């Protein structure tokens, strides 16, 4: 099975491919380049893997939580790709993919917290259980999460924010397109995929109502 994976939920823009035992990944870590670079990375990964799009069995996309803009770019592009090739779209939790990549790299163990900045003093947070499986993602206030993380292991996109933790690792080092592709392949093999017509990323937060400055002054 050949699956392409797209990861744009944060300042990391990464595209990967899994094909049997082999995997390929291309990653750029820079703000606001995702819209420009995403298809270039897709092209590079496909060329290096000597794979053409029609050979893909699915496109997997990191579905959040994360930056609304980043998620929109990744999901819009993933929808465009599958609309063209007629293959399934598979969504993968961004934090679950980060946790698996970090565990494989020996960076976190069971009982670690994953935390992604949700702005306004809040975090998207989830806990790895004793088997190392990531639990449900919740929105937590900073003070509450800091208490939970004291003396624990934390994988976060804001390492400087967790001074009380025992070990802090950078989540962004572990967000990779090929891990998204791998987890997507797992879901596909279980017969799971998304309805491309209705699929939306995991925003977690309701939108904030502010009228457009272009319309109301």
């Amino acid at each position: 099975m050949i699956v392409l994976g797209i990861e744009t939920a944060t300042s990391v823009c990464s595209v990967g491919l899994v094909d049997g035992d082999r995997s390929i990944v291309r990653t750029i870590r820079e703000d606001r380049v995702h819209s420009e670079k995403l298809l270039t990375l897709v092209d590079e990964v496909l060329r290096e893997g000597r794979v053409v799009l029609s050979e893909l069995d699915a496109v997997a996309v990191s579905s959040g939580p994360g930056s609304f803009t980043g998620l929109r770019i990744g999901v819009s592009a993933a929808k465009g790709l599958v609309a063209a090739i007629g293959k399934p779209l598979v969504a993968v939790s961004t934090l679950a993919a980060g946790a698996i990549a970090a565990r494989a790299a020996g960076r976190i163990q069971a009982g670690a917290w994953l935390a992604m900045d949700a702005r306004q003093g809040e975090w998207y947070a989830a806990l790895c259980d004793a088997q190392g499986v990531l639990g449900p993602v919740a929105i937590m206030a900073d003070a509450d999460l800091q208490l939970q993380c004291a003396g624990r292991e934390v994988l976060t996109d804001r390492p400087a924010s967790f001074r009380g933790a025992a070990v802090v690792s950078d989540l962004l080092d572990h967000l990779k397109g090929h891990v998204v592709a791998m987890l997507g392949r797992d879901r596909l093999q279980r017969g799971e995929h998304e309805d491309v017509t209705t699929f939306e990323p995991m925003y977690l937060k309701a939108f904030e109502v502010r009228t457009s400055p272009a319309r109301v002054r």
Partner: protein
Amino acid sequence: MTVLGIETSCDETSAAIVEDGVVRSNVVAAQVDHARFGGVVPELASRAHLRLIVPVVEEAASRAGTTLRALDGVAAVSGPGLIGSLLVGLSFGKALAFALGKPFVGVNHMEAHVLSNLLEEQKPSYPFVNLTVSGGHTQLILVRAPFDYEVLGETIDDAAGEAFDKVAKMLGLEYPGGPAVDRRAREGDPAAVRFPRSSFDPDGYQFSFSGLKTSVLYYLRDARNERDQMPARFVNDVCASFQAAVVDVLLKKFFRAAEIFGVHDVAIAGGVSANSSLRSRAAAEAERRGLRLFIPRMEYCTDNGAMVAMTGYLRLRDGARSSFELSAEPNLSISRP
């Protein structure tokens, strides 16, 4: 040559197919949720685009009796507009073209409005003067030749449609304000209140509507008694008088530009061209001056995929190609080479 056009610059998710310059389909999914906020909510609009993009594009292909694989090219708006909204249509359109192995071209939303005049059987001849008036834009353009635009003037504050929305809000009318004000203005007296015609840039083509909006606000504050005594007639008269002031300002510069640049054809595009007074007065004045006036049908005036597909078709036929690294630009200008 069959081209798909995708428009997601504001709150309409739209896709259309143009085949050799002829519209085969034009699907528009208007996002109705914004009315309860009295304006477009960018995050809400972006999320709706992402939900609607696949069904709207597939419907456009199916109504045109074609498939995505049969396309010869894909066009999507890259600006100007709301960044989050633009990114959905642009990212989708680029990925679709990339995966189909077909050329892609990014389209300027303002150019698409101008070229909406080419969607009808009767088309203006070059050179022509075009006025694009909508909720987000007020732009007077000299179209010298294909793809050769000179922006003569723009609004320095509110767009014309925006002024309608705000006055409607002051009067407690529905959103969007354009149709609401127009409907009441038909029953009112346009000479009831003499609102100021902006003397801003008297010899040029810049527009300003914020002063007019403020004078409506002051008038409503000072005329509270009349308002209480005759609410319906009062509202109708304010609507008619305000609308007359907007139309006066728009048409004065529009027809002066036509005279100075010596064009025979003039065109109006954008959602505000639905305004009944703007239409009838522009038609009368054009006839008096011996000019041909073009206003596309309503579905091509409001934001739509057909104008994007047409612009994409013309650009692609002309050899234009955009890189797959093209990104969205909220302030993209039409006159950039």
